[in-house]
């Protein structure tokens, strides 16, 4: 009987691993443990036997508040939302890179000036 009671006192703890200081904590699974300190101890060996990390979080499953699976309208996206998409920004990155690379080559700028008719001749037509 004692054994059964002790087992009933175990909680589920969700485990989050942070691999480097620059990373987010990522959910990797869960452990069953009688207390948070035991959960931290066993999570370390159950999820980090081979991989490196800098930090561990354990969170009692009961403390996690989640959306319901049976209300799909929580995530409804029915209308055209192209206006929210940010595809243009990634193109900006490429363009900036191109302009910056071109600007860095002084000879190219000089050649560009020399080869363009009407430039570098004192602006006769101006």
């Amino acid at each position, binding site marked *: 009987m*004692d054994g059964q009671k002790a087992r009933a006192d*175990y909680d589920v703890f969700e485990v989050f691993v942070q691999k480097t200081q620059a990373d987010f904590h990522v959910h990797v699974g869960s*452990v*069953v*443990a009688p*207390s948070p*300190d*035991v959960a931290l*101890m*066993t*999570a*370390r*060996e*159950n999820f980090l*036997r081979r991989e490196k990390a800098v930090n561990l979080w354990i969170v009692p499953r009961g403390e996690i508040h989640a959306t319901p699976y049976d209300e799909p309208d929580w995530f409804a996206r029915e209308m055209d939302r192209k206006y929210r998409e940010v595809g243009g920004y990634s193109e900006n990155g490429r363009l900036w890179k191109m302009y910056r690379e071109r600007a860095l080559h002084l000879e190219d700028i000089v050649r560009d000036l020399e080869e363009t008719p009407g430039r570098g001749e004192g602006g006769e037509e101006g």
Partner: protein
Amino acid sequence: MNVESADQARQDPEYRKALVELLYQLADDELCLGHRDSEWLGVAPDIEGDVAFSSIAQDEVGHAVFHLERLHELGEPDPDFLAFSRGPTERRNAVLVERPNGDWAQTILRHFLYDVFDDVRAESLLASSYRPLAQGMAKIRREEYYHLLHLKMWVIRLAQGGGEARRRLEQALAEVWPEVGGLFSWGEGEAELLRHGLIQCRSDELMHRWAERVKPIFREAELLWPGLPPQPELQGRSGEHTQDLAELIRTMSEVYSSDPAARW
């Protein structure tokens, strides 16, 4: 004077002899306890603890491998042979770590008392004249940090759990204590080890440092401090062992004995 490599150590037969004796003590302690830990695989109190304890077992065996490789560099046989083919009288582990696990409380308490000792011993070897050993101990000690946290947590939990847990822990203390003293011995060659600077700290000093670390945790666990451990009946560091070690070796080397070239 520091010795930087196995080749240098081999040039001084007296130095090499003392060093080899020391490395066997370190290797055999870790190998025996690692094997005993591994016996919990599949039968620990819960699955998470099972995985954690097995991982600790692998760490201990890994540390044994480090010492066995250092021995091989010094001209001793290869690590597998040393692990599996030496008889009990050639082993230099303390008798405490060859004993069967007993129940979970006894396993935890013995491991905790050993881990504190192992840390104190490793700390004292950081200044060893044999630099490959000193450098290895610095790494091993970092891995042992988590073991200590883990075992300390378990001792406190069992002690504060009351009821059956506490009763079993107190029983374990009574059973384990008479053999704890064997850990601190540096064997018959202690004077030589000191003279060569291989160790910096005598065995009685080692025991006192250990006691100062264990006492506060006993206080936290509200366990009665039984006084310094007595001298054990058998000197494991001199090759005196129990039938338990013979059986441990037989089990551990079952595959190796049937086919020394087997890969597994």
